[in-house]
């Protein structure tokens, strides 16, 4: 699961469109019921190329990912990413960081 997760994320980053800005994604995720899970997904995201920082609010079930400059994700890609990691992705808000 881990290797699939990282490989998938790395491949799509190589093919993704490049932007001049970094991005912030606020994602609502089901299944974040304990710190173990939060730490687990945080570790996986931080290992992924293009991810600059990860903040997790367990209480609200929200994962906030900030990317490095020029990296963006599509909603489909994020959906697949969380599915592969064992979580149910619900929704996403995104904005550019300048």
């Amino acid at each position: 699961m881990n290797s699939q997760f990282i490989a998938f994320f790395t491949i799509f980053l190589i093919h993704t469109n490049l932007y001049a800005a970094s991005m912030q994604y606020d994602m609502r995720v089901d299944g974040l019921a304990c710190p173990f899970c939060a730490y687990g997904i945080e570790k996986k995201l931080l290992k992924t190329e293009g991810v600059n920082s990860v903040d997790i609010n367990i209480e609200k079930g929200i994962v906030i990912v900030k990317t490095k400059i020029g990296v963006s994700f599509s909603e489909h890609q994020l959906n697949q990413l969380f599915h592969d990691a064992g979580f149910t992705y619900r929704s996403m808000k995104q904005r550019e960081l300048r």
Partner: protein
Amino acid sequence: MRKLCLSILFLTLNACSWFPAQQEEPYQLIQTWGGFGDAPGQFNEPFGIVVYQNSVYVADSRNSRIQQFDFNGKFIRAIGPPEIKKSQLDRPMNMTIRNDKLYVADFWNDRVQIFSSAGSFIKSVGGPGDEPGKFNGPSGVAVDSNGNVYVADFNNQRIQYFNANGKTLGQLGETGEVGISSDKFNYPTDIAIDKNKLIYVTDGYNDRIKVIDNTGNVINKWGGPLAINLSGGFNGWFRVPSSIVIANSGEIFVADSFNNRIQKFTSNGKFLTSFGLSTKGPRHTTVGVAVANDGSVFVTDHAHHQVQKWVPHDRQ
């Protein structure tokens, strides 16, 4: 008709055991210490906690260190400072102490770190992976009277055990396989071992406790009806149990993390009482639990970055 009556009788009798009454008064909160920060005595998401002699050791998880206190919360020392690479910790979780050695589940580094009770680094066991002897997110650790080390290998869905020299002896559960049957786990979070070498596992996402003998047979389990992954807030039920400890009396204390409470049981799983902060606040105010010989119960409050000290009602 007779079968129907017997079935109803069976369900009624079982239903009584599924909703047990409180047998003891709840414990009383007498002290908290800590608060958010990285200074000595402060915490950033404390998790594991263990009592040894006159000290309380707290896994200060996001600060990547263990902090040692006396029973009144006076800071003694920090263990696992980041400037020494081999003794580094990253998201330390549940811990245990046996024979003057502190065993730490080093969650992000996929290993168990072993220190002396005074904080000197001794050695590491494990490394990342799912092969025998490797871990994927070790979350809890216990040591039996022979010095064998049992590790809850959270993301690998198994318990691995080693001898005192770190040689792999075997595992419980199937690597990477989640299930509700007795032989499987669903993200095991912690372990405790009693004087009879019975292994108590908090089977986290199955919302139950499993008791396993030293031949690997499950001899008891509890947590909701039939202990088959039915979660809830009733007495004796769980929502993601995250830590377990056995008192000298043999009684079992479980941190029922998503229910914001500690539950106390007899050694065979009979519910006795529960206690914790108000459920109206944030979740995860009771993630780790330890018991002193005098009956005081120390609890890590992940949400408020503090340690709680509770005592039996009649001792207040």
